[in-house]
């Protein structure tokens, strides 16, 4: 939990700043990638910060939430390297199974990308926009800049400085929690990271317009969540520490327009790279119980892949699990629609049976349960499903 606070607090890729919109649009394009960062001396504040991040990285490496899929890892690393140039050798990307939209890069070169972010991207270029933003924070050394700013302005900052000076030898989880609140990037830094992100993605041949599309999609989801007063809206770091995102979306689109059309989106490559994990990521997504947001996500994915039975099944699940008003009817309709689609899992029939049972349609429920068993005769819940059918008889 502490780590999560830290990650959210210190650097959220797409969760950045905003009223700077005009300045961002006018930012000069003469930025040059700084040379590779050298490891700072251990007895400096920056050295202390690196030491703490090294320990955090060790924890990440051991974490049961780390997704250990070499193919996916190589794919995301490859994108980061295309963007980072010489810095590639210093950047280590970790993909973490957490169903929230977030990415984070530490000053020592560790980058975390969460599964909730990956499942929301629809193209390689969109992921590149996020990674480029994080690399922007890294190469500009925003963390240490922020730390020194905080230290110079408050006694608490001095206290943080003492902790960091001792970080080489002291267990540091509580220190990380303290840092979480203190080192959130400021708006100017977010602005700079955004500008660098778009520069890097354009230079690597990606379509810059995809950066603003990340925001378009995220805002649609958050608005749906707000309408249903869901947790993510209430608690999102985005809206606690930053202004809303419409202006940012527009500004990124303006920058992209200034760079001209073209560039690669890499939709097909992205879909293939994530294919093996999409089911698992969507299962996790449902567990957030922010069904308004999840429905927007799934409807958007279905618009892109209208014949995808697995997506249609998950849409039915989002309705069934909320189970308010006419949700169960909507769930059954979604399941029915998925029957004729490709890739629909057998579990769809089990869920349809459960929804129909709740609606009092025991006969239809029995048929759906029987179909589930037909498709999955060795299902680990087979005996229970048979008991449902027997009860209906």
């Amino acid at each position: 939990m502490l780590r999560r606070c830290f990650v959210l607090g210190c650097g959220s890729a797409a969760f950045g700043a905003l009223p700077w919109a005009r300045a961002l649009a006018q930012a000069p394009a003469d930025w040059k990638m700084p040379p590779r960062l050298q490891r700072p001396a251990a007895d400096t504040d920056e050295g202390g910060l690196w030491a703490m991040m090294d320990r955090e990285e060790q924890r990440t490496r051991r974490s049961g939430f780390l997704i250990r899929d070499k193919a996916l890892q190589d794919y995301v690393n490859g994108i980061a390297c295309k963007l980072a140039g010489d810095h590639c050798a210093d950047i280590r990307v970790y993909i973490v199974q957490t169903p929230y939209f977030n990415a984070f890069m530490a000053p020592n070169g560790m980058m975390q990308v969460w599964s909730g972010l990956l499942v929301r991207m629809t193209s390689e270029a969109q992921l590149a926009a996020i990674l480029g933003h994080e690399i922007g924070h890294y190469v500009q050394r925003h963390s240490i800049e922020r730390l020194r700013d905080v230290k110079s302005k408050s006694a608490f900052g001095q206290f943080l400085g003492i902790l960091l000076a001792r970080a080489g030898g002291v267990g540091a989880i509580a220190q990380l929690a303290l840092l979480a609140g203190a080192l959130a990037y400021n708006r100017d830094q977010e602005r700079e990271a955004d500008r660098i992100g778009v520069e890097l993605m354009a230079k690597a041949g990606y379509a810059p317009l995809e950066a603003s599309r990340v925001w378009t999609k995220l805002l649609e989801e958050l608005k749906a969540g707000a309408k249903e007063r869901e947790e993510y809206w209430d608690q999102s770091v985005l809206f606690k520490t930053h202004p809303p995102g419409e202006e940012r979306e527009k500004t990124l689109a303006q920058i992209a327009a200034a760079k001209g059309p073209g560039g690669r989106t890499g939709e097909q490559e992205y879909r293939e790279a994530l294919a093996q994990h999409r089911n698992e990521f969507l299962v996790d997504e449902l567990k957030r119980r922010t069904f308004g947001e999840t429905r927007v996500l799934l409807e958007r994915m279905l618009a892109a892949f209208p014949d995808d039975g697995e997506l249609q099944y998950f849409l039915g699940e989002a309705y069934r699990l909320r189970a308010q008003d006419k949700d169960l009817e909507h769930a059954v309709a979604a399941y029915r629609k998925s029957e004729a689609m490709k890739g629909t899992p057998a579990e769809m029939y089990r869920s349809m049976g459960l929804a129909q049972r709740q609606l009092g349609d025991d006969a239809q429920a029995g048929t759906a349960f029987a179909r589930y068993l037909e498709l999955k005769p060795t299902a680990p819940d087979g005996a229970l499903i048979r008991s449902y059918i027997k009860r209906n008889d």
Partner: protein
Amino acid sequence: MKFRILFAALALAVLAGCTTVVKVGPGQVTVKDMTLTLEGPWNKFESSALVLFQAPGATEIWTREGFTLDVLAFYFGIGDGETIGQALPRRTTKMPVFRLKMAPHEIVEAFETVVTQDGSILKVVKIEPARFAGGDGFRFEYELKRKGDSLLFNGIGFATVANKKLYLMAYSAPRTHYFPTLVPGLEAAARSATLKR
């Protein structure tokens, strides 16, 4: 170092003021209106203020080896329309509501919602009909990846709906050593459960 000692002392003082742990068993013990016969002693967590994130809102929480290791959570006597569990502090996740029409699959989904609020990941590996507390019920097995420390747990649960109320007990412990060692005692306790129907 002084800061750490101060922090630890403060945390201990807060915990001591809010919680107590009392011994239950061996022998007959009553939880709500269900009676269990225990082969050995358990520790019962009592708190007026804290919510244990492994089992938020449980009727009772027990452990054999310590609450950071193994947890037996009872969600007992939950009536139609009543909430199962409790949202963790500073969370606004809507807690599931028990409905008499719920199938075992849906009850397990609800349980999962309650115990994974902290970001832990639960995977149900088996769910089957079983006798529990003298009537028809079900039994489920699950794996849990705990968010705070990435520890891998195995879990087992028993539930029944009796007298128009839900009775669910679920036990989890680290999959290496603790679960295989402790689960026979838990299964024996579950087998001993009796409830007036």
